[in-house]
Every structure is written in C-alpha cells, then in structure tokens.
C-alpha cells in the first residue's frame, strides 16, 4: 500500500473517531436538529472536511441518546429533533477540556518530531 493510500486510511479512521464529539459540538452550536440537517451542518462547520454519510448518523444518535447526552422530540410535523440534555452540556464541557489537552500533547509531539527530523 502506498503512503498516500495509507494516510487516507489513517485520516478516515481518526475522523471517524471524532464523529460523536462532532455531533455534540454541532448540536451545541445550532441548538436542535433532525438527523439529515445535522450531517449537513457538520459538513458546513468543518469546512467540508468531515462528513457523516447518509444513514451512518442513526446508530450514533441512538447511542448518544442511550448515553443520555442528547434527547429526541418530535416537532409539529412529527419530525424527530435532537438536542443536548443538561447532562450532555455538562459532558461537553469536560470533553472540550480533554480534547484541548489531547491537541496540546499532539501538537507538542509533532513539533518535537519536526525538530528531530
């Protein structure tokens, strides 16, 4: 496998790992949303870098609901809208700190490896 292909595979893998945090951050940004609109907003907010294709968002939303981080409610047209729960908002603050810390470590590591190279 060429390095380009390998890199593409790695990038896809770590982007996938950020799908659930992205859903939470996007919901925090836009308030409430239905499934498809959420995928559109994620694409917009990440400048087209990260997309959750088609129906892949459904199991993630179900999992987040099971974890009581989001809650779904039907609107007047009976469409299911998702929003963060109070627990979800609290969790998001903790997650934000954790991601920032992780980013700092990664940045430090990449800077160090640049110096070594």
């Amino acid at each position: 496998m060429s390095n380009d292909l390998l890199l593409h595979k790695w990038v896809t893998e770590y982007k996938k790992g950020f799908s659930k945090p992205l859903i939470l951050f996007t919901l925090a940004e836009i308030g409430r949303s239905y499934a498809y609109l959420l995928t559109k907003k994620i694409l917009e907010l990440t400048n087209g870098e990260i997309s959750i294709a088609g129906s892949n968002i459904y199991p993630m939303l179900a999992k987040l609901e099971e974890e009581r981080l989001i809650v779904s409610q039907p609107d007047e047209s009976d469409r299911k809208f998702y929003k963060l729960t109070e627990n979800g908002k609290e969790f998001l603050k903790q997650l934000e700190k954790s991601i920032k810390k992780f980013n700092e470590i990664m940045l430090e590591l990449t800077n160090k490896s640049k110096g070594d190279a």
Partner: protein
Amino acid sequence: MSKQHALDPIDGYIREVSALLPYAEALKTPVLEELKKDVQDAMGTEKRPPSVVFGSPMEVAKNLSIAQNWGSTPAGWGTRFIAFIVDIASLLGVFALFFLFQLILVDFQIDEIHWYTMRIPFGFLFVGIPMVIFILGYFIIIEKTFSTTLGKKLLGLIVVDESGIKISWNQSLIRNFTKVPILTSFLPFDLLFGILSEKTRGRKLRVLDFVAGTKVIHQKRSYNK
C-alpha cells in the same frame, strides 16, 4: 425495477430498505417515515439515484436496525428447541401427505408417463422429486424467504443477520447445513459447541450461526421508542 419505482425513486428506495427489515409494519412505519423525510431532504434537486446519494438500501437497513436495537433479544435454547420440534412435526405431516398421494397414484394404477422415448415413473416425478426438494430446502428456502419457519413463527421468532436485517441465501445455506437430513447427525455438535464456546454462549448462537453471521431473535411487534 417496477413502474412505480421509476415514477417515484424515493418510495421505491424506501420499499427496498423495508424489504430488508423482517419486522412488523407497526414497528417499521414510523422509522421509515422519518427516513423518507431525510432522504427527500438529501435528494433535493439531485439527479442521481437515492442509493448513490444516501447509501445502498442494505447499508441503510443495517444502520436503522442497529439504531433501533431491533435485533437485540436473542431467543433462548428452550424456545428454539420447541420451534424445531414443531417444524419437524410439520415436515412429517407433509411427508405423510406425499405418501398418501403416492398411494392414490398406485390405487388408480397411474404408474408412469411417457416423454419422448422415456418412461418416467409418476411417483418419481410428482412425489420423489418434490419430497427431496422439500426435505433439502425447507429450512433454507423458508428462512431466506420469510425470515422464519412455521415453528419459529408460532413462537414469535425470526432469523436475522448480525446487524438485524434479512439473511442472504448464503447465510441461510450455511446456518441450515446441519438441518439437511443426511447431515442432521452433526446438529447436536453444532448446538453443543455453540452452548459451550465462550464466543457464542452469551449470544445464544449455534456454531453455524456464528459462521454464517446470523442469529435467532424474538420479534418485537410494536414501536416503543
């Protein structure tokens, strides 16, 4: 593709997804209605088919089933055993009918039919061949087509793929390998290793269920989410 699919690609697409989900309509309808709204939004002014824009019907069916947790209640060994007994009893009933038909043929002295220069025994054609197909194919064909058998249906059980969608021909063939009459002597081992093995014990799978990627579950009937 039917005419209706050509007229309304989104409805056709939803029907394809629905056909892959072997659950009660009452359970599926609200979820599929929600899906339809998302697909309509995604399609917008798109000219490409929904399967390209939103994903293949199989992928969508899998995601829906996982999200709804439909395939999550494995059936116990006792219930499955009763279902198997009912199936064997109904198979024996059908054999009895075949033999009765054969007796009628003999009684009316209908021995053979002539086809070109060949003489084909009537019993072979209308009793022997259908019976062999029935014996070999009962579980394989019925489970693939209806996701259940008579015994399972009576006990509210269905056979699904690991992700909760309908099983494929290959999966049906593999999981029912030890139910083909000459191979049934392997069924106790298939079951025993399934009960004992760490990988299959908790999920209540026979070894061949594990190999085929299938499971037997209790069918949920109503939407309770």
